[in-house]
């Protein structure tokens, strides 16, 4: 093969129907290894549905969804999901939540503890390992959800509006942490968000999905200076320019941009 980065995720005319109603229609794209793709779009346009197909929770009604060239057959630890609802296990401590993948994989207890504590430290949860999710704030819960996924060392991370319920300051910290972790692990990230700023700050590319005819989404490239995790980037001219382009595209009536 060539030296170009491999394609990790590929959708080829993927459609999905919910009881006769078409939610995704002939959606095609490909995402390369190490990319961060931010997905924007109005509520109900099918962002979660798209992530669910990648995660293996849903099968396409038509078309084909591939991971590393193979058809996605079901959920698996190579794709980590960070849920908008956190989806933590309320009956497990933070440490047990984070170690869940290792426990299922039958890793030794010592390794489970060691990795859990390291991941807790990575997301800033040191000192809360023995607490239960209901004893954490929203931001801490989402950090726990993130650490739980990181402990499985996935090739692809799928994040569904993970910071929607988090205050602005925590959100910006977490966004910077995502970029730092991505730089460290080189994983691929698909990040669904409602916030244009969040999309531009995180995304190498941005998919703007539109209600209804989802085959035609608009794509924006973001060329911010590396490393991406400096908060200065939020004031960079490129940041402001891309933000404006997306803003205008979202205001346009659907279809006229094509």
């Amino acid at each position, binding site marked *: 093969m060539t030296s170009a980065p491999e394609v990790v995720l590929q959708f080829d005319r993927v459609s999905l129907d919910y009881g006769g109603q078409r939610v995704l229609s002939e959606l095609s794209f490909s995402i390369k290894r190490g990319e961060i793709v931010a997905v924007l779009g109005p509520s109900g346009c099918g962002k979660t549905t798209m992530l669910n197909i990648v*995660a*293996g*929770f849903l099968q396409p009604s038509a078309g084909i969804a591939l991971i590393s060239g193979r058809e996605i057959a*079901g*959920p*698996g*630890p190579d*794709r*980590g*999901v960070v*849920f908008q*609802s*956190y*989806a*933590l*296990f*309320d*009956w*497990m401590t933070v440490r047990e939540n984070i170690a*869940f*993948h290792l*426990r*299922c*994989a039958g890793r030794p207890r010592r390794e489970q503890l060691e990795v859990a504590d390291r991941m807790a430290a990575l997301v800033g949860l040191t000192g809360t390992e023995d607490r*239960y*999710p*209901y004893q954490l704030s929203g931001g801490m819960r989402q950090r726990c959800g993130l650490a*739980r*996924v990181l402990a*499985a060392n996935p090739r692809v991370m799928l994040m569904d509006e993970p910071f929607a319920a988090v205050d602005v300051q925590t959100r910006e910290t977490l966004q910077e942490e995502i970029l730092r972790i991505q730089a460290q692990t080189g994983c691929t990230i698909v990040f669904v968000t409602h916030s244009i700023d969040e999309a531009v700050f995180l995304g190498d590319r941005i998919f703007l999905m539109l209600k209804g005819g989802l085959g035609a989404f608009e794509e924006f490239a973001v060329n911010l200076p590396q490393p991406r995790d400096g908060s200065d980037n939020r004031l960079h001219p490129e940041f402001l320019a891309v933000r404006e382009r997306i803003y205008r595209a979202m205001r346009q009536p659907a279809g006229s941009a094509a």
Partner: protein
Amino acid sequence: MSENRQRRARLRYVLLAALSPLALLFLWVAATRHGWVRPVILPPPDAVVMSFVDMVVSGYSGIPLYVHVAASLMRVGVAFFVGALLGIFVGMLRGRVAEVDAIFVVPAEMIRPIPPLGLIPLFILWFGIGELSKILLILTSVFLITMVNAQAGARACPADPLRAALSLGADRFQVFRYVVLPAALPQIMTGLRVALGTALSILVASELLGGDRGLGFIVLDASNFFRTTYVFSGVIIIGIVGLASDRGLAWLSRRWVHWEGRR
């Protein structure tokens, strides 16, 4: 400040919980003292206490009281333990696996509305009048109650934690063990408490099936001979066993499902 208020609320709870049985006792004393009711219908408390002391000292119908208590506890205990295990197991499977539900739905839902008393003649026919019949009668009810609750709990397991577990590499068994079971636990515990109460109430009926010992036997035998004070003693002992075991289960429940209502 709020801690103070919590302590006061707790104190109020304990006070009311202690006062309500005392009030009942007071009514009881008043009703018998003033001759509102005939003693054979409602004997005075001191006569009941005397009958209790008599049973402790010299047993009932030639058998020591502790043997009666042990016989009943053994029947309820075995039936409750085995019935609950089976009920939880089948109920959880019914809640998550459509095929298992399909197998059980008609027989289980047909047996469920039959009152346990209606099963007694059949059980005598099939299993005789020994221990087996008694235990199976209680076990059947415990099984049906815990099954319904476990099924509802397993079905109510939220989708996202299930998906999270699958995408973190859990196999079907691990999903069951680590997600479905704990998610169903609040309803399972409620089912256990209901089943325990029912088990004790069926105990009396099950001891209709012959035999010469047990708390239910005391109650039935005494009532046949209008020894109302002994009926009351037996009923009160059953009640105390019920109260103690329910408090025990409630305590376990609070420890095991500490997250409930705190999400």
